[in-house]
């Protein structure tokens, strides 16, 4: 499954340019929508603060009142009595109040316009409004003149003045009618402009918002897809780990049971071969003795191989136990050297212990297991040495917490290109074809035991000069605390 993905370009690389473009579009749309939002807020404020009077209604009312006043004036011209003059006075007051109201409307519009000076719509409506205000003020000045004349007439009842008043009123009515239609047009224009302005801004805001939403939908979908992909990969690797563990356990169990099965008949072979070899009643001929010795040697090698496989499968299955205790380094080394001495002698290899005069520390380890490690290393050093070669053991404290035991041989050395495979099981680095017996799992076991002892193992080697294997063992319960352990 994983292999399939590796064959095609990764999705992220394929989609990158597209994703960058989408991010840019979304960011751009966000900026624009912010701009249009501010515009809309201004529009809203403009609408909210706009005077709510309808100037068209106001000017129509004014014109209507002008006509009523004209009627009252006509009535006075026919019948100049106190009663009719009183009605004229009332109409004049109402007429006056209409100018008053219209003036307020225009004042409010002018004030509103100066507050909206910075907005888009200002130039579209300001000039028209200023012109209307100016013309209205002219009409109102004429009305004030006429008002003065009417007041004089009401006080004096002088009918002579009525002609002049009529003339002034006609001018007012004519100008005011003309103004009414212009106010109506200007109002329509203003409302159209404000509405179009708001609708345009709203339209711009909508499409930028739409782009942002589309961007977010895309990114949500993309992140969901990535999440699902990652989740599936995790599930697959979990499954693979479970399968791997099961396979490893099956292998260990198989090796363990097979080793047991093999050991039983092998013990019979070895036992009966020894009986043959040493039976004083029926001594063997020389040839027979040689054959039995071959059976015994082969059988012992096979037993060693089986024991090591059993050991390795125990370690891998976690079934090996390690008992930590305070163990003097001196006694571990002496024990190991004592056990290997006969073997070295057989092979004609000299063992030198350069640490024999040193005072060695006490180690926090499993003495038996550490001995096993040292014997393995010493046995390799003997096995892969040259005829008449030497094995040298040295010791050193490499830190306040770690003790290093080094075993140097004068063998052929390990070629650099093969050094990486040294601790892998069943790797014999090309010695399979040689005459040295070996299982290829000794170093694997050694390294795994060293790990269990909280230690480390390593080596240096040069072809033609030999190899030095070293093992580090803690002198401390937690292998790294600054306090040196006391003597037991």
């Amino acid at each position, binding site marked *: 499954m994983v292999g399939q993905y590796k064959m095609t370009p990764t999705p992220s690389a394929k989609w990158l340019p597209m994703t960058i473009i989408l991010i840019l579009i979304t960011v751009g749309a966000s900026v624009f929508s912010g701009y249009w939002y501010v515009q809309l807020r201004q529009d809203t404020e403009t609408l909210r603060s706009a005077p709510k009077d309808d100037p068209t209604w106001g000017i129509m*009312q004014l014109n209507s009142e002008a006509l009523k006043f004209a009627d009252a004036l006509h009535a006075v011209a026919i019948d100049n009595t106190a009663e009719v003059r009183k009605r004229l006075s009332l109409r004049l007051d*109402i007429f006056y*109040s209409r100018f*008053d*109201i219209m003036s307020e409307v225009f*004042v*409010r519009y002018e004030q509103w316009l*100066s507050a909206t000076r910075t907005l888009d719509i200002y130039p579209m409506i300001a000039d028209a409004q200023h012109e209307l205000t100016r013309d209205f*003020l002219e009409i*109102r000045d004429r009305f004030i003149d006429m008002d003065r004349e009417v007041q004089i007439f009401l006080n004096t009842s002088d009918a002579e003045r009525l002609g002049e008043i009529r003339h002034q009123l006609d001018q007012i009515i004519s100008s005011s009618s003309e103004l009414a239609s212009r106010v109506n047009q200007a109002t329509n224009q203003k409302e159209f402009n404000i509405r179009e302005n708001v609708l345009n801004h709203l339209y711009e805001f909508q499409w930028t918002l739409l782009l942002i939403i589309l961007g977010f939908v895309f990114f949500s979908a993309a992140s969901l897809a990535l999440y699902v992909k990652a989740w599936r990969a995790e599930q697959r690797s979990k499954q693979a780990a479970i399968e791997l563990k099961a396979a490893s356990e099956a292998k260990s169990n198989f090796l363990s049971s097979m080793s047991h099965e093999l050991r039983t008949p092998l013990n019979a072979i070895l036992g009966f071969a020894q009986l043959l070899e040493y039976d004083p009643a029926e001594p063997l001929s020389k040839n027979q003795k040689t054959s039995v010795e071959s059976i015994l040697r082969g059988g012992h090698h096979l037993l060693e191989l089986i024991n090591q496989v059993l050991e390795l499968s125990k370690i891998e299955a976690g079934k090996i136990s390690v008992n930590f205790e305070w163990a003097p380094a001196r006694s571990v080394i002496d024990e190991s050297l004592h056990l290997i001495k006969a073997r070295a002698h057989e092979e004609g290899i000299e063992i030198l212990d350069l640490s024999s005069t040193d005072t060695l520390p006490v180690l926090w380890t499993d003495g038996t297991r550490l001995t096993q490690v040292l014997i393995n290393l010493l046995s390799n050093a003997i096995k892969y040495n040259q005829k008449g070669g030497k094995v040298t053991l040295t010791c050193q404290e490499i830190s306040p917490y770690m003790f290093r035991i080094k075993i140097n041989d004068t063998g052929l050395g390990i070629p650099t290109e093969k050094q990486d495979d040294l601790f892998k099981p069943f790797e014999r680095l090309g010695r399979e074809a040689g005459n040295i017996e070996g299982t290829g799992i000794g170093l694997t076991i050694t390294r795994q035991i060293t790990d269990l002892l909280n230690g480390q193992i390593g080596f240096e080697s040069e072809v033609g000069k030999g190899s030095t294997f070293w093992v580090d063992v803690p002198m401390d319960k937690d292998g790294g605390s600054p306090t040196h352990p006391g003597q037991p």
Partner: protein
Amino acid sequence: MRTLLLVLTLFFLSVPVNGNAADPILTIGGLTDKTTNAPLHLTLEEFEAIGMTTVITKTPWHKEVTTFAGVSGTALMKFLGARGTEIDAVALNDYKVAIPVSDFLNSGLILATRKNGTPMSIREKGPIFVIYPFDANPKLDNEVIYGRSIWQVKELRIR
């Protein structure tokens, strides 16, 4: 702009006070206990005698905060024993607007006769101006209520 305001101020200062204190200013008719047979004609003095209430507020027509005094809608309804649901208010120029009785009872409106303590002339939108308490209730700030804020009221018809 400043010139305009100055001219307007002078314009307002030239206002003469019209009318006679003995003339009726308001006619009331329709579904009330007091007007079953004939409409009621009230002079300014008689109208104000119903009971005065003060509302201090800005209005769309008065930029400064102004003190209005007049008869509250509630007091008038109580005085009349009104039974209708709507009141047609008619102005001197015959402009007519229908005001719900509920506005009279619940909105806090007054039929103002005085501005800053002085009776309002016709030129100042008197003798009666329907004033809602705009400052006390921002919800009143809309065209519908502006339309009901009728001035130069001469007649009320309860129906």
